């Protein structure tokens, strides 16, 4: 059960975009922006509020890669595996993050909820490949060594 504050926040977000079906995606994006994931209860609530079926809301939420029903870590590390980064060897960087944080292909978030590791297809900073994005900050010219340092730095 989510407490009332979640619904209050959601009402505020709905008010920004208006109670109409076309508002679904931006509303979900903002909810995820606040909570770092999309709580299922809120999705049901949003569907009801903007006048679409729950099934429709889920069909849209599951279609787009960015929406997650699982809570994500405090730091979401997106390792770019776009062409430019791939050619400049991004695979060892992903391996380093996965290995150092004890994650796997099926487990993306650490147990302490500090880190989530994902891949992304292009961050648009190809000139500085290979790149990694932590929340909204892009880190350029990464190496496995710099990846290790970055984890240390984020752990504080």
């Amino acid at each position, binding site marked *: 059960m989510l407490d009332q504050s979640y619904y209050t926040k959601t009402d505020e977000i709905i008010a920004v975009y208006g109670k109409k079906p076309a508002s679904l995606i931006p509303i979900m994006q903002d909810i995820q922006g606040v909570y770092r994931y999309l709580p299922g209860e809120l999705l049901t609530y949003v569907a009801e509020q903007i006048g679409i079926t729950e099934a429709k809301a889920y069909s849209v939420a599951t279609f787009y890669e960015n929406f997650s029903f699982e809570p994500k870590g405090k730091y979401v590390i997106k390792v770019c595996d776009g*062409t*430019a980064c791939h050619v400049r060897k991004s695979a060892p960087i992903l391996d380093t993050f996965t290995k150092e944080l004890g994650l796997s292909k099926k487990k993306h978030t650490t147990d302490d909820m500090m880190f989530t590791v994902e891949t992304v297809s292009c961050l648009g*900073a190809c000139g500085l490949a290979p790149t990694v994005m932590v929340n909204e900050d892009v880190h350029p010219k990464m190496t496995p060594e710099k990846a290790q340092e970055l984890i240390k730095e984020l752990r504080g």
Partner: protein
Amino acid sequence: MINNREELKAAVASAKEQIKEYDVRILVCSGTGCIASGSEKVYEEFVKIVGETPGVTLTFEPHDSDEKKLGVKKTGCQGVCELGPLVRIQKGDQVIQYTKVQIADCQKIFESTVLGDEVIEALLYKQNGISYKAPDEIPFIAKQTRIVLENCGKYDAESFDEYLAGGGFSALQKALFEMTPADVVDEIDKSGLRGRGGGGFPTGRKWKQVARQKETTRYVVCNGDEGDPGAFMDGSVMEGDPYKLIEGMMIAGYACGAENGYIYVRAEYPMSVARLRHAIAELESRNMLGENILGTGFNFYMHINRGAGAFVCGEGSALTASIEGNRGMPRVKPPRTVEKGLWEKPTVLNNVETYANVPKIILQGSDWFRSIGTESSSGCKTFSLTGSIQNTGLIEVPMGTTLREIIFDIGGGLKDGGTFKAVQTGGPSGGCLTESELDVPLDFETVKKYGTIIGSGGLVVMDDNTCMVEVARFFMSFTQRESCGKCVPCREGTKRMLEIMEKIVAGKGELEDIDRLQELATMIKSTALCGLGKSAPLPVLSTIRMFRDEYVEHIVDHKCRAKVCEAMKKYVINPDECRGCSKCAKNCPVGAISGVVKKPFTIDPSVCIHCGACKENCAFDAIYIED
């Protein structure tokens, strides 16, 4: 408030005057690349230094004072992303380009170049032993023709006044007061401008089709869902010159009778979203967006939609479905977007670069635009130059420029003196061009003859350390993952193709697999529902055509000449270096290494799984990968 033409003219005149009042402008690049390199901290440092220095005034907007007036500005992409953070010091017409500026350099730059007239040699751009002071002299920039990117690096990307000072909104003014909507459509049509998103469809024809629809509610939509990995041109325009994109869309709205414009920006570009939102708010606050613009009765409203991580939304009908709040899946055409697009209404859908070309065409005329580029492809094209190349970055060149000019003259050749192997154009929807195609002019038609497309403009340069089979597998895995699943050829076909590619890369391929790939590819190409599906097999087809021998090597000889494919790597212990410590044998997860302590060990290749654990942990560097 700017309510009519006179007020706009007055605003332009005052912006032009104001910009001249600066004694020195410190232009810090604030493109995604430079920010990643730390340019925001450099910007803050300059603001701090200028603020603390007596006798000078830091002016964000110039004002009257007897002190020396300095401006510190955040500009759009200055180009050479590799050498960021980039900073330009501008004194009147004189501009000095500094590269790799660190916080520690700011004080010195301020004292020597900003207050004094001394140039810091160490921070200048250098190529082949020559240092360049002015950005326009740097070969990387001197060999470009910048239309869309004209303002990037010169003006504050966030400031409405600076956009005006650079000639902004003169095109809208001309369109609204001196041309009818039909004149505007005609001018664009005559200019020969073609869609810069990849398809190359004539923009004027598209606008004409929308303008003649019976339905009067129409929309202008901008595709900023630049999903091709390795491409960042549109992102750079959205964050570097947001007003120009909006002006282009407003002109399209006027020409086609639309009151609402939507920009669909991909989720990975938070900065583009922020800059566009800022620009829209600035324009709204001045009545330059909204009702009765400049008192002409023309209404235009701008909206921003953020993507949510689906590559297929770059396809027109999927993009409009996503704006409507649906799953972003393409639909069967016809009806086409020009007839039934967003909310089933006639819709002009163009990409960022296409709209950004519009203001200058209206201002300078279609003849001017036609004088640039080639007969069938007029104007310039932006490219993002990435991969194994010396100068990575954002460029704009006339259509018809050759790859050789782009890679060697502008790009400075291969990185670390590598050997050129191929360049991938058009991303996962394109193909590769090799050494023998270096002199092919890049325009829509010519490139098609070589089995690839210009695409949106990503150029990923590959040297001989790149395995073409693995690259084809990489693209296949990308399109497979991004397939929306609506039509069978794409959903099932790309999956089967990927499986075959994975088999070949794992060293388990058969020669017949090449035929199977070609058969599947041809089928998908001719039967898939949308552009994403139709073009998904192109990288495989293109690499088979250009690099068939590499496929055969992988299959028959189990050899990867680029030494990339793990399964092809043969790990060998050099008996001269091995001290027989037995560490590798203990580390080997499958027991492939054996030997007697203090004598050289050996690896059994039939058991080895190529994990590399032995090589990584050898204290004597005795293990290597055999050619």
